[in-house]
């Protein structure tokens, strides 16, 4: 199994990570039986929230023009 520590060490100081446990083994982490599956609901709700906010969040950031890359992206 992938240890909790290994799963958590995404970066030394990545600012915004939420760690959640899932009572499944490694393979079953991404396998869900139906749309009322408890583990599925946990994940899809996160995904839904992310999807709803993504376009807006990126748009407001696009106004600053700088994304953290090495070149500026023109609008």
């Amino acid at each position, binding site marked *: 199994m992938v*240890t909790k520590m290994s799963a958590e*060490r*995404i*970066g030394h100081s990545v600012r915004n990570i939420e760690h*959640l446990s899932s009572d499944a083994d*490694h*393979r079953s982490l991404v396998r869900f039986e139906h749309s009322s599956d408890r583990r599925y609901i946990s994940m899809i709700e996160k995904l839904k929230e992310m999807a709803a906010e993504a376009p807006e969040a990126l748009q407001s950031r696009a106004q600053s023009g700088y994304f*953290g890359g090495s070149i500026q992206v023109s609008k």
Partner: protein
Amino acid sequence: MTPHTASPSAKPHFWRIQNIKIRERDAAIEWLQEQVNDLAISEGQGFSLAADSERTLCATLTSYECPRPTHRSWHVDKDFIGFTPLCDPEDANVDIVAVTGLGGHALGSFRSTDGLSVWLRDFAPEEIPRARFLTYGYDTAVVASHSNQGVHELAHTLLDGLVTFRQRTQTHRRPLLFVCHSLGGVVLKEALVLSSKITDAKQKRLLEVMTVTYRLIFMGVPNLGLKHNQLETVVKGRRNERFVKDLLVNSDGEASQILSHLTSDFSDLDKRRSLPFEIVSYYETVSSPTVVVSVHRGNFTQLLYNLADYPCYRT
């Protein structure tokens, strides 16, 4: 066609049908519906049909037998290498991209126990109706072969393939969300770091992947690599040594060089961003034989090693 409910152990396969012309859409839907007629599907349709370029559509299908298309130009495969669209809403405003683990299957790794449904295709799209779902499949030959491809090359292939797919469907500026399983998360992190290091304005499209990526879901990603000192021996001379070297924890329990660089590069990238990544990371709590990497040999998937036996890096 005989219904297959009698044999619970037999699982259906996932098929991909490419090169369906836009004008053949109706014929394709009719044909796909016929194919899934006898399946006892509880959720979803058992198939999908979505644009993979301005002129063509790509279908996926759940079926016990290899489908025989009515059009000779339709191309059937079950490897799912590269990007496969699973839905294609007209008003889509975000791409959700699933990245399986190395040696995993772009659809099969996400299936239900009966093998009939895949949440990415069969029930998630209706919950997030304005998202286009894509799934990424690796060429497992890369993992298995003598090729000198490591994490870096796999990440580059993913990045380039994603840019190409989004260009071909005129969607290259759309925000991106990723759902990564297992080593797929390591490859994606490397792809984002690679993307951020693009300095050539001609490759602006590659940089755009990082700039439009905001949120990630990681499921059991072994950020510190795999521990198994004997793995190198198992693999030596026969398999892709470079790949194994990239992911293996050394005898002192330290992550490989590439993986420790990756954690710090990814951190640096996050620090530089005006808007930090938002990540939800799930870790497993049930210990059981865990296939992280499997390698195709002929038609069979040979399980090469298994994380439960070779626990990850611990301090």
